[in-house]
């Protein structure tokens, strides 16, 4: 069966896989808005982040992509997953903020991260692109810090995750070109009737 590509949990439906699976196993965060796995795909103010906890207790970002709401999924070494609650996220951000203040955060102090084999969950979270939004109130303490800029790159499981994540976020603010023509027509199919309800089907 060499031609038939097998799917794997996340590859198959990309980042969507995590959303779908969490709904299936019934540990969905009740606060997270439903019905928006992609129906709101064009309104990206938040992010969907999957963080892997390694057996040695360190953390890495496996995947991250824009979504309407911010959701952080923590995947344990045994493969189980759960969504971090708003309270947990806030607590992690607050803890990291305190560490940044007193110079013990790996985000801003390279000696901390090299000393204990990696960042804590809060540090990894804030190093994600999403983290910049979540922790926006401490963002200005981070963004001007060169160590933070280099640290965050290392928290992704692979360089492609980082560059993919970065590029998919930058498109939210991509510039748009204006057209000067004023003779445009619209309103086609404006009175679509029932005969066009379905576009195509397994007919025949």
């Amino acid at each position, binding site marked *: 069966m060499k031609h038939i*590509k*097998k799917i794997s949990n996340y590859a198959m439906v990309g980042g969507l896989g995590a959303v779908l699976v969490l709904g299936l196993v019934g540990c969905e965060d009740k606060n997270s808005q439903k019905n928006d796995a992609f129906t709101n795909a*064009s309104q990206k103010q938040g992010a969907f982040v999957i963080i892997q906890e390694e057996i040695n207790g360190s953390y890495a970002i496996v995947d991250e992509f824009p979504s309407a709401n911010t959701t952080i999924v923590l995947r344990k070494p045994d493969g189980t997953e759960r969504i971090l609650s708003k309270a947990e996220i806030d607590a992690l951000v607050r803890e990291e903020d305190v560490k940044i203040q007193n110079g013990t955060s790996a985000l801003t102090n390279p000696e901390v991260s090299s000393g204990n084999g990696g960042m804590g969950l809060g540090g990894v979270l804030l190093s994600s692109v999403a983290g910049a939004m979540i922790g926006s109130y401490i963002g200005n303490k981070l963004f001007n810090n060169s160590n933070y800029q280099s640290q965050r790159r290392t928290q992704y499981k692979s360089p492609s995750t980082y*560059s993919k994540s970065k590029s998919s976020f930058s498109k939210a603010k991509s510039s748009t070109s204006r057209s000067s023509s004023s003779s445009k027509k619209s309103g086609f199919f404006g009175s679509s009737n029932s005969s*066009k309800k379905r576009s195509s089907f397994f007919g025949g």
Partner: protein
Amino acid sequence: MKLKQLEPLSNDYLESIGFSWHTDLDESSYISNEIVVLSEEEANAYYEASNELYDMFCEAGQYVIDNDLFHEINIPFNLVETIKESWEEDVHWHLYSRFDLAGGMDGKAIKLIEFNADTPTSLFETAIIQWALLKKNGLDEAKQFNNLYEAIKDNFKRLITLDSDVEKFEEYYKDLGWKILFSSISTSSEDENTTKLLQHIANEAGFNTEYEYIENVQFSDEGIHKDDVNFEFWFKLIPWEDIAIDENELAMIINEIIKNKKSIIFNPAYTLMFQSKAMMKILWDMYPNHPLLLETSFEPLVNTKQVEKRCFGREGANIAIVNADNSLDMKTDGEYEGYKAIYQEFYEFNQDKEGAYYQAGVFYAYEACALGFRKGGKILDNMSKFVGHIIEE
């Protein structure tokens, strides 16, 4: 045929992921809780057959253009120029399509029923629902011929790389930044959510995208716009023949847009040739007695059980099954009477113990990439059910 009974996905769950069309008009579930069990060998045969058929359709497309057979295959005249233009350049990339096939199980040979090349549905069902069904039931989701999501993602990247190799996408795209506008009609949540799933996949591929209902999209010789912003690419889940027949003015503007290279439209206009059921007659002329084809003619076949269909009929409408002695076996009405008729040799679908018939749908995106089934009566209509599958030895 072997089937496996599974615990169904709840309607609440289906709705939570945007799959709103889970229940048919008679209140029955559209997603079957039984799935087809097939062998690796059978799955691979569907894959090989679809790849071969796609190559044959490409040959046939060239043949139609070279011999000016547009009228023969019932193509509306106002799209002929657009079709020719789209055929000439690679950037008019065929994103995805679906072959409907009979046979393939219980030792029954695979035969082409038709090719949904322009606006195929069942995308959501095939890519996601049947996968979730395995996942929910604790089955190995890797045992499914289903690479649809990734295959379409890679094919989106090829709009930029125009090559089997998609590695260079990001390098090229960062300088281009070409945007895709996705559109469907506003009165069908099925179409809207299917279109938004495609938009999501394009986003993941790395494209800048927007969504807008067709009636709000602005067209001019200068291109395709939303809120006065020009879009280089436009994806429409609207059949080309509807554009040609219901919105002639739009067809004319699109002709200019394509000619002047202002916007590229997906699926490309040439997919309307593939979509026409008359192509199966062209294929039979080019590849007579090919094992994957059923004899097809523009005239009724003699002394042969056959199916009369309309070139652009859908959902099992306007179909007649006629016995070899010319008596009528079965007939459906519909709104596609106006299209040209074709006559295709009858071939029985695989059947389960309850007597239901199964048709395979194989998606194609650069290569065959996913399998799903439909089950129903002898004529599969819009009350037929979607059936997932699992590969077991």
